């Protein structure tokens, strides 16, 4: 049904606020791609405390239990993104939003949602300077951000070798032929990013073998995944360079029971990321 709805709408370029214009009217389509650069937010202790206090006690505890301040910051910004997005897309008052986590730790909206957003789902990620969120009304969505970090205790090759069980022979070959050790490292991180986005989209935990996934691409465009050697038509991927050291991948897939015909969402072009500031998110949530 959703597929029919979308396929009949004349899709104007989906602008960055995630709405579709239909006959001059803006319709919420539930799609968001937001990023925050947390290196640009340096709150004082007092400021940080006041932002934390916007959340319920259980969320506050979840944030403050991190030892490193950078982790607390990421946890807080992640929640700001989640609550802000749900509030904006679904119109639920911030204090009524209930976000729980699966056994694997994936956050999800507990509030019951009506059609057409009954399969609304989102995913968050952070690494390095960025915290991000992606949402979709129907397709499953996974987001992963990687920060390409030169290993400190070992060489790039030694570092990459730690992950050999998680990559396929083809992927290894591509990494090995990427050029300098920096280029190999970046290549590895891109593969890792895609794998993580997929696993996060399906909400899998440890019982998913990353080496079952093989990513094919042409210069990192037209990315597709082979699962257990078979190309999957139910998944689309995109990989974006955020800056010299950061990449983000989005995995979008059809929910289990859907077949390709019933959901043309998957063929919609991938939306670019919008950069948000912490201040904007705070005022959204307040």
């Amino acid at each position, binding site marked *: 049904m959703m597929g029919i709805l979308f396929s009949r709408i004349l899709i104007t370029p989906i602008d960055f606020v995630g709405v579709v214009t239909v006959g001059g009217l803006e319709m919420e389509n539930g799609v968001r791609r937001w990023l925050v650069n947390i290196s640009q937010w340096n709150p004082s202790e007092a400021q940080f405390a006041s932002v934390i206090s916007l959340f319920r006690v259980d969320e506050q505890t*979840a*944030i403050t*239990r*991190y*030892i*490193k301040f*950078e*982790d607390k910051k*990421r*946890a807080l910004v*992640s*929640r700001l993104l989640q609550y802000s997005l749900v509030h904006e897309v679904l119109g639920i008052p911030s204090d009524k939003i209930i976000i*729980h*986590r*699966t*056994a*694997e*730790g*994936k*956050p999800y909206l507990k509030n019951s949602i009506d059609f057409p957003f009954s399969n609304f789902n989102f*995913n*968050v*990620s*952070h*690494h390095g300077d960025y*915290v991000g969120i992606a949402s979709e009304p129907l397709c499953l969505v996974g987001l*992963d951000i990687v920060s390409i970090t030169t290993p*400190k*205790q070992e060489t790039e090759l030694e*570092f990459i070798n*730690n*992950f*050999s*069980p*998680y990559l396929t022979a083809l992927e290894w070959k591509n990494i090995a032929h990427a050029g300098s050790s920096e280029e190999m490292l970046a290549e590895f991180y891109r593969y*890792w990013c895609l794998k*993580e986005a997929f*696993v*996060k989209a399906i909400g*899998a*935990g*440890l*019982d*998913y*073998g*990353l*080496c*079952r996934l093989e990513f094919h691409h042409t210069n990192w465009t037209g990315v597709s995944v082979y699962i*257990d050697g078979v190309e999957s038509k139910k998944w689309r991927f995109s990989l974006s360079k955020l800056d010299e050291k950061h990449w983000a991948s989005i995995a979008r897939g059809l929910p289990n029971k859907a077949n390709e015909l019933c959901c043309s969402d998957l063929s919609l072009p991938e939306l670019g990321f919008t950069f948000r500031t912490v201040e904007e998110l705070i005022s959204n949530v307040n």
Partner: protein
Amino acid sequence: MATVSAASVRFASLKPASRSNQTNGVTSGVKFVTIGTSKLSFPSLRSSRFRVHCAAKPETVNKVIDIVKKQLALSDDTSLTPESKFSSLGADSLDTVEIVMCLEEEFDISVDEDNSQNITTVQEAADLIEKLVLQKAEAA
């Protein structure tokens, strides 16, 4: 009883995995990273088959602490105790793989599916390591 908010680490098998989804609590692959969750977190159901009876020696605990501190670049004055929960240390999936690798190398053990256990704290990791070291010695 599974505690949803508990954070625990399951040492994933690091051997090339030809195994697929298994339902006996055995896993391969690495936990994905999610914000604000215990990065080394997995369902906290403790399998009764693997209950550890003896607490690990302090040296083992200290070695675990050293490896974790180094891997997560925690400052020297960060106090890590045997009770420290992995969930609070902000390890992501890449860190998890490396920590397990380091522990395997340091103790010359192999953490495979049959031995995997849910670990929530440094002490529990050390306990598992000693159990594996003992098993290896007994098997030799």
